[in-house]
């Protein structure tokens, strides 16, 4: 099944790299312009479940790597029913300075919270996203906290250690 999937993908897209591991994971590396069409293609093949969008900060190469993880609901599909579960990881790279990408909401509606999360923790702007508002964090950070150049120890020293104990604050006045 995976081999036929590979052939199908290779015949429809030119700039694409596919690795298949033994534990049924399919890694697809694409250019940033092709990602939406690849995901759309996979969705039409039956991989209808977007499990997660994740991100890696490759600070030395000055790039973010976006990873879209897909799988299928195999019970509903006669072709896949008695086979092992396949996870598909679609990877792409975007530049770190101009961290912008296109939203996936038109293809997978459940991409909305994942993209909000990435916007908040990595500072990636998704064009066409209806509400990139704060999701988890309570304070504002100058550098988004999941980026590699965010210095947590320095931040803790500046913010949390600067707050005095009540006893000390009382004595100061």
């Amino acid at each position: 099944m995976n081999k036929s999937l590979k052939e199908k993908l290779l015949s429809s897209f030119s700039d694409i790299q596919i690795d298949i591991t033994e534990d049924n994971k399919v890694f697809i590396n694409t250019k940033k312009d092709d990602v939406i069409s690849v995901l759309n293609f996979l969705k039409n093949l039956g991989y209808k479940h977007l499990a997660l969008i994740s991100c890696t900060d490759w600070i030395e190469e000055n790039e973010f790597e976006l990873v879209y993880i897909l799988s299928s609901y195999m019970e509903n599909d006669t072709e896949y029913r008695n086979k092992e579960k396949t996870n598909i990881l679609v990877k792409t790279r975007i530049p770190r300075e101009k961290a912008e990408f296109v939203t996936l909401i038109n293809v997978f509606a459940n991409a909305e919270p994942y993209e909000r999360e990435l916007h908040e923790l990595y500072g990636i702007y998704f064009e066409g996203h209806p509400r990139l508002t704060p999701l988890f964090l309570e304070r504002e950070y100058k550098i988004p906290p999941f980026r590699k150049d965010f210095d947590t120890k320095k931040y803790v020293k500046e913010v949390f250690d600067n707050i005095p104990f009540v006893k000390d604050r009382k004595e100061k006045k």
Partner: protein
Amino acid sequence: MDRNKLEKWLKSPTKMGHKYSLHVVYFCTGCGIIEIPPSITARWDAERFGIIPVASPRQANLFLITGYVALKTLKAIIRTYEQMPEPKFTVAFGSCPINGGMYWDSYNTIKHLDKYIPIDGWIAGCMPRPEAIFIGVTHLWTLIDKEMADGYKKYRKDYKYYRENQEQIFGKLEWPPLFQKEVKK
């Protein structure tokens, strides 16, 4: 009722009442809440110590803070604590509220909880066993007996400083101060 304690009951009925009816707010923070279901159900049976979980902070007088406190949780903790009627006691669980624990360099976790609300007792460990909760509670009894569990009195007295600390971390708070400034006569 234990007949040996009859004298104590007659001497200070309020204290004995506070001691043996500790109602806990059902408030989950962090991973320590996983210790609460076994300790309130049949195996460890917290009710023999008079500990019952209640649904609303208005009915409670014991606040167990069960694990690491993120900034968003801290806001909820302050609001819950301020809603509880006096006398109220707080016990913080595990090493994270004490000094940050394994989240000592986290960008979003509070390091010292007693900077923001008063804490009467600490239970160290990651995580403490249910037995440790009961040891902590029996210690709290002795503190109540000696009138040393006075966190709520401290909060009333030093509210200004606690509020300043809370405002330093959050910026402007959305709710008005619990205690208004003292009016000079």
